[in-house]
């Protein structure tokens, strides 16, 4: 799989497909879970980073915003952001301001301890923190998890804007396929650890399987959840 510079790439797949594992492999987190890459290599910016350790990868410009928030619970919102800029040796006020303008809510809560924020607030913080590293490639693992619809819209707006304004490359893993494919240029679909489908966002949007399983669209448009009477019609590309 390849992520072209300056583009937004979406990675879709059902629960347990291995999406998060994929991102962890790219950002070098597997050793910390006693996992390892058994085969293959990862190239970034023309360099082979397969053997590089996680901290170094961040310094070369890879930043991951992990699934499940992972904010530093005992640090305040502000300190979380400071930690986010650690790899750059410190942050300027400009960086903070940028995050606080994207997420005004965080601005109001600078001094609060992150562990007590609501789920969605933590999610905002996690994304803001990842931005503090000023990455070249930002990887987001389910950024919309637990966010209100309005906010999801906004976040994807920012992603788009960041991408257009600063040329930031983004790899986003999402369950909210509709939103993801709206902003992405390109998409991959992962099932049981394999890439089973890829294409431009537009192609994927038209694929009938994607429509049914990821976009929740039946043949005759969007289905009503109340009407679904059966569990699982097992799929699919395997």
């Amino acid at each position, binding site marked *: 799989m390849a992520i072209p510079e300056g583009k937004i790439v979406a990675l879709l797949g059902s629960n347990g497909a291995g999406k998060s594992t994929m991102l962890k492999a790219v950002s070098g987190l597997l050793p910390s879970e006693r996992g390892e890459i058994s085969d293959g290599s990862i190239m970034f910016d023309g360099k082979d980073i397969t053997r590089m350790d996680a901290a170094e990868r961040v310094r070369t410009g890879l930043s991951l915003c992990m699934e499940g928030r992972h904010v530093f619970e005992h640090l305040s919102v502000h300190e979380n952001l400071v930690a986010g800029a650690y790899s750059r040796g410190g942050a300027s006020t400009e960086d903070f301001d940028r995050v606080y303008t994207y997420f005004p809510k965080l601005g109001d809560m600078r001094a609060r301890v992150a562990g007590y924020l*609501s789920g*969605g607030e933590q999610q905002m913080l996690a994304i803001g923190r990842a931005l503090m590293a000023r990455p070249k490639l930002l990887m987001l693992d389910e950024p919309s*998890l637990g966010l209100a619809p*309005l*906010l999801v819209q906004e976040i994807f707006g920012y992603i788009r804007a960041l991408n257009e304004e600063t040329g930031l490359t983004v790899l986003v893993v999402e369950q909210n396929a509709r939103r993801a494919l709206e902003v992405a240029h390109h998409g991959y679909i992962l099932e049981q650890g394999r890439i089973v489908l890829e294409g431009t966002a537009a192609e994927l949007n038209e694929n009938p399987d994607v429509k049914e399983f990821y976009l*929740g669209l039946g043949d005759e448009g969007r289905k009503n*959840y109340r009407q*679904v009477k059966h569990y699982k019609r097992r799929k699919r590309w395997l």
Partner: protein
Amino acid sequence: MPEGEPLLEVSDVSLRFGGIRALSDISFTVRQGDVHSVIGPNGAGKSSLLNCISGLYRPQEGRITLHTAGPDGSRREHQLVRARPHQIARLGVARSFQNIELFGHLTVLENLMLGRHIHMKHRLLPALVWFGPARKQEIAHREFVEEVVDLLQLQAYRHSPVGALAYGIQKRVELGRALCIEPGLLLIDEPMAGMNAEEKEDMARYVLDVNELRGVTVMLIEHDMGVVMDISDRVSVLDFGKLIGDGTPDEVRRNEDVVAAYLGADA
């Protein structure tokens, strides 16, 4: 209790954390047999509200009243505000959590059996001896648990430690554990977060089945408006700890405050 009767009454509940007002003067009623959704922007106080109902937070003001039917069919009232969480669970209020709080080292079966905790007797001596009452009880409750396993299609995972299961499966186990309580009122906090459309359909189906077949009243927090609007009988909307809307899905969808604060233009 007959359909449509008030089951849970929340009146004038306020909750503060230091200077932060998480909930202010919330009042609404959940009726028997409904799927009652709570929506609102992040940090609006939805989870805090559930925590108040299940006794994990203690609101500074207000009352939360639960109605149950006694053995002879008479109505009973219970105040939940001063009750401890386990006492509330014993009244048949079960819940799942936003961030999945399963017993990570235990297997799926053990997690579900723990859902049966309030229906079991826990005496030390028989437990140490095992043969006799303890074993009989285990087997009896195991039968109930197997029904839940079937309903939620967890057969394949019975003996897997839940900590290692995929996120979606864990969500299902958590729902299962709550069902094992045989609740009258089921509180679920974002059960579909992190799922794709297909999995959401399944989850919606489970919730509806529980509600329709078993007559369990459900209180649901969810950010996917498609799901909420489709399956709810009633929707309450919170923003900044205040109730800004309460009604049927259609009424709520038309409420301008709600659209501005939460839904956004295209929902």
